[in-house]
């Protein structure tokens, strides 16, 4: 029942956007309020899981299931969705988008949110695949909201590379199903995750190795793991700001969730070594690519996108470092979601004021938009892992997990790369904050509503940086239990 509260609001919101023409601001308000219902449902699931309750299931053939991992992801997705919908363009004040663009925006973003929620609540890996492909399709329709050469190029690369990646992930799913079928014959519920997990120890190692390669490459493309990341900087920088925030904040995490689900199954067949090696290799590569790209960045939105790649790489490495690493990676996921979504939305405000995405075109932020500047500084410093923000704690936990599992050299490399990114981001931030503002840029902060909402993110980050609330810790422990059996 709660599942309906989770999934239906976004469908209703999309239907509303499609049916009301011309677009009215009321649609925006209603959709934002509907998203709160989904958030409520997600929190309920998380609470239930944190208490150690059995995972509720729903639907024909146990279509939907909400264990601890799903619940955490649901909360992240729903929270960012609400934030983004409340801060979407077109709430009455003048907006740079036309009514038909706004209608399209509301329609597709709600479908996008629906497909993400379906991905994390699906019990059947086939349905999970269908939902992830749907996220690609819906977000690709939104990237070229304003038709420019760059946005069209970005959307083409995005849909082509991600669709190919997802198709390869499907091939991996077929191979996993093949192994199950060869062993136990065909069954309707064979693609249900608990069933796969139960039969995993008796599956054939060679086949599962091949399947995992396809799956990692496929879902990894969507998660922004190097070397399949080439679409990411383009898509995240050219998309409209709320979409960038959602994509960087949660979509990458959702794709990583898919990889994690399959990792658990493959680990039950092969033991952890094989998948860990692959994840560490690709994670490290992502870190290298991202850190050096941040140094070379000239566009602040692309810089943020590369930072997302860096954090995805960190999470991959974390997932490969045993139970401590999984705890750290999941904590990092939550922190990153909070920080990145906030930073992108703030970057959108900067863009709206300065009309350029070049770093050298932005200066004197502290004078023109003091509130935004302060929060942007907070967001960027959080992203690079400065205390008292949560990412410091999660990165520390990750390093500790690395040393605990006997990989000191790897952790050394990780620290160096993080330091490189740290220095680069601070350099870019300074260039943007200080100095004299360019002419033609209005001074003074407008629209305090968004800042008020985003301060919630800051509060969350600081809270997680100072303490770890008990229910949250319980939830994370549940997840570790699910992942490392």
């Amino acid at each position: 029942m709660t599942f309906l509260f989770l999934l239906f609001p976004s469908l209703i919101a999309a239907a509303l956007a499609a049916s009301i023409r011309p677009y009215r601001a009321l649609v925006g308000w209603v959709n934002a309020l509907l998203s709160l219902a989904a958030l409520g449902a997600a929190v309920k699931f998380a609470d239930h899981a944190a208490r150690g309750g059995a995972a509720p299931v729903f639907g024909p053939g146990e279509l939907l299931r909400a264990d601890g991992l799903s619940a955490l992801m649901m909360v992240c997705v729903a929270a960012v969705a609400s934030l983004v919908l409340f801060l979407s363009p077109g709430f009455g004040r003048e907006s740079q988008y036309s009514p038909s663009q706004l209608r399209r925006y509301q329609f597709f973003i709600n479908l996008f949110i629906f497909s993400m929620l379906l991905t994390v609540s699906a019990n059947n890996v086939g349905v999970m695949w269908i939902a992830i492909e749907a996220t690609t399709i819906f977000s690709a329709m939104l990237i070229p909201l304003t038709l420019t050469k760059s946005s069209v190029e970005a959307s083409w690369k995005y849909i082509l590379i991600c669709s190919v990646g997802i198709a390869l992930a499907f091939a991996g799913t077929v191979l996993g199903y093949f192994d199950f079928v060869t062993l136990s014959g065909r069954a309707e519920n064979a693609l249900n995750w608990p069933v796969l997990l139960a039969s995993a120890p008796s599956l054939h190692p060679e086949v599962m190795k091949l399947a995992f390669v396809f799956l990692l490459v496929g879902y990894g493309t969507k998660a922004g793991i190097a070397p399949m990341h080439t679409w990411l900087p383009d898509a995240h920088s050219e998309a409209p700001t709320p979409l960038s925030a959602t994509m960087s904040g949660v979509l990458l995490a959702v794709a990583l969730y898919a990889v994690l689900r399959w990792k658990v199954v493959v680990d039950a067949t092969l033991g952890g070594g094989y998948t860990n090696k692959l994840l560490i290799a690709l994670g490290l590569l992502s870190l290298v690519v991202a850190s050096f790209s941040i140094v070379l960045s000239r566009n602040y939105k692309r810089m943020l996108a590369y930072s997302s790649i860096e954090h995805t790489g960190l999470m991959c490495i974390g997932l490969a470092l045993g139970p401590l690493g999984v705890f750290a990676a999941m904590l990092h996921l939550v922190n990153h979601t909070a920080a990145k979504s906030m930073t992108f939305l703030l970057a959108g405000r900067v863009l709206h004021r300065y009309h350029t995405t070049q770093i050298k075109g932005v200066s004197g932020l502290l004078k023109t938009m003091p509130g935004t500047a302060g929060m942007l500084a907070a967001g960027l410093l959080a992203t690079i892992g400065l205390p008292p923000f949560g990412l410091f704690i999660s990165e520390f936990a990750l390093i500790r997990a690395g040393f605990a599992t006997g990989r000191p050299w790897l952790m050394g490399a990780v620290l160096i790369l993080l330091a490189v990114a740290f220095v680069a981001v601070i350099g870019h931030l300074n260039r943007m904050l200080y100095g004299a503002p360019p002419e033609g840029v209005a001074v003074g902060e407008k629209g305090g509503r968004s800042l008020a909402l985003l301060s919630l993110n800051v509060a969350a980050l600081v809270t997680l940086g100072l303490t770890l609330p008990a229910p949250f810790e319980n939830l994370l422990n549940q997840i570790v239990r699910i992942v490392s059996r």
Partner: protein
Amino acid sequence: MNSHDTFFAQLSTLGASVTLLFGVVLLWRRSLGAYIGAFRWQSLVLSAVFALVGYYGHDHELYVVAVVLLALKVFIIPRYLKRLYQRVGGEREAQPYVNIATSLIVAGLLVMLAYAITRPLVMVSKLPTRGGIPLAVGLIFVGLFVIVSRRKALTQIVGFLVLENGIALLAALCTYGIPLIIELGVFLDVLMGFLVMQVIVYHIRDTFESIDVEQLNQLKH
């Protein structure tokens, strides 16, 4: 394996080979219209393979899959492709990133690679259709190679569709298809993905005046 099974094995492998050959046509011909034709024929043969597997595997759901595949990939999608081709003008793949003779040799090598990679699968499987599994994976690789080595956006779309065909063939040959609901969902996703790609190609045509992806180089560091 009795002779009944052997005949089934031969036919299914034959179907898989023909499907792969139509995929190789994408690397051989230059005209975009030829690609659309090759894709249509390939999808026709693929739906025949599904029907064949449904007949010999005694699984009637596969007949449904074959019909849906036929409707979708032989009629609906090619119709949109043709319309797209007419609207974005008669461009030809005159200078692909990898020339045609080399592409053909690479295709042969990719199929041999597929044979090497899928040895564990063929050894594990007990189905009569297992001979075609390497060909399906080879088709996947060929589809990937088409996307990477060709310059026109339309060719890349057809390469993606061929990749999807390869995966469907893999599903048919190694597990006699996947559960019907999932299969239908997959088809729906492919259709929607194709429609979105099509929309974006129109955008490309409008903003760049050509569908040559070499032009898409605005976004660099």
